[in-house]
């Protein structure tokens, strides 16, 4: 298994642990990640709120880079916002030759060209579809038996493009969670919205959306995410929301490759667990991880 790898800006900053744990986990299961040379920002959701053409051009540049490198036909993207931006360009330029022409006129400035040869894939798509479950099970070192893990998919890896999962009732994480020995925490909030950048622009609304998620997850040992924005929203405001709702809503929030990495015996350091903002004492105790980190 060989993939071109687009980490995206968050994974170099506030989501560094997602980058580290993705790399460590993929390496441990025998997948090779080749980072795109000279990649640039995909535009996030911000650019499409200001300028539509630029919102197409920015992701297009990265896909064109991937085509140029030609090391793999699959471009692996862990961040759901980056994934959707890149996927949109893959889809739209494939169906709209006028747009493709326009995009290539822009990319010409960088000496690049888009041809439509690369498939954009989310990390969850790759892990749930390409990873051989028996191979993963053979690597298991630590059991999560007795744990209830809530899978949280968020929005943009599921919608609007139904690529690898059911966008209304996602389940692709379940076999992976079960393989670690844990039980899948039953809830119907897996595909609900975390509010995205509302936490920065309209915090009172964002807090309500995250509160609903944390309240519904009460009873689970951890929530597992596949997006830096979801992760940050779920882990960073727990104290504020607990105060707001007058109940203790603290819960461990892990990235999926962190959970899977722990299960196959990768260390806390490999998975950069010290960078998470919410790993509760009870979770550490239950997993027999030291509490001093």
């Amino acid at each position: 298994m060989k993939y071109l790898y687009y980490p995206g800006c968050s994974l170099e900053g506030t989501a560094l642990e997602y980058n580290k744990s993705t790399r460590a986990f993929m390496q441990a299961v025998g997948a090779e990640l080749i980072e795109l040379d000279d990649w640039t920002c995909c535009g996030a959701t911000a650019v499409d709120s200001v300028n539509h053409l630029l919102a197409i051009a920015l992701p297009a540049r990265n896909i064109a880079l991937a085509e140029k490198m030609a090391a793999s036909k699959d471009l692996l993207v862990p961040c759901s916002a980056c994934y959707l931006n890149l996927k949109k360009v893959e889809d739209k330029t494939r169906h709209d030759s006028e747009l493709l022409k326009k995009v290539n006129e822009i990319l010409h400035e960088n000496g690049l060209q888009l041809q439509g040869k690369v498939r954009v894939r989310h990390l969850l798509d790759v892990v749930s579809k390409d990873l051989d479950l028996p191979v993963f099970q053979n690597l298991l070192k630590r059991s999560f038996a007795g744990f209830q893990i809530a899978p949280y998919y968020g929005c943009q890896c599921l919608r609007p493009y139904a690529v690898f999962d059911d966008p209304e009732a996602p389940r692709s994480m379940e076999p992976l969670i079960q393989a670690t020995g844990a039980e899948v925490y039953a809830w119907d909030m897996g595909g609900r919205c975390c509010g995205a950048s509302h936490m920065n622009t309209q915090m009172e609304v964002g807090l309500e959306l995250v509160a609903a998620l944390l309240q519904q997850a009460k009873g689970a040992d951890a929530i597992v995410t596949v997006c830096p924005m979801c992760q940050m929203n779920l882990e960073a405001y727990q104290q504020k929301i607990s105060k707001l709702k007058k109940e203790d809503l603290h819960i461990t929030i892990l990235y999926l490759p962190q959970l899977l990495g722990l299960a196959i015996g990768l260390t806390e350091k490999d998975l950069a667990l010290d960078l998470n903002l919410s790993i509760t004492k009870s979770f550490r105790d239950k997993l027999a991880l030291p509490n001093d980190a």
Partner: protein
Amino acid sequence: MNQTELQEKQNPSRAPENPLAEVQNMVNSCIQCGTCSGSCPNAFAMDLTPRRLWRKVLLGQTDDIFRSRTFSLCSDCYYCTLRCPRGLALTEAMNALKQIAAREDMDRYKQSIRFYKSFLSSVRRHGRVHEMEFMSLFFLSMKNPFLPLAFTPLGLRLMAKRKIAIQIPSREPNPLEAIFRKVEEMEGRS
């Protein structure tokens, strides 16, 4: 008064320079079923439900649309786009409204617009987003000395984890400058 002027007067929303025209095309076949409103996670905070917003778009009620906070509350979850029985790209239509508000620099949406523009500015300077610089640019642009305080506790936690560092806004040569310039040139052309 010639024919065109007359038409514009009778139906201002169809005037050629009407900024809403593009959005009207996007939602033209809306049947007002309300699936979007029922699916929207932010509807609870909206003054107009998405269904009512689309009706106002089609009626060309520009003032009502840009007095409402509805489109600025879209968090791009794509439930409405997924479920719309007419197959309308409603999330993109919300974004098209955000783009109009940003283009006109409407005061009502200042916080969102400044947030997005600060983001873009950081991307243009470096090719990638520098999160701390982006937030600093945002705070500076809002000219509100109390705004950063709401983010201070989180900022300090992130700094303690060395995920972000204080950054003085800077600029470095990067390939995106040429892309930004070309897009500006092409949009000036159209």
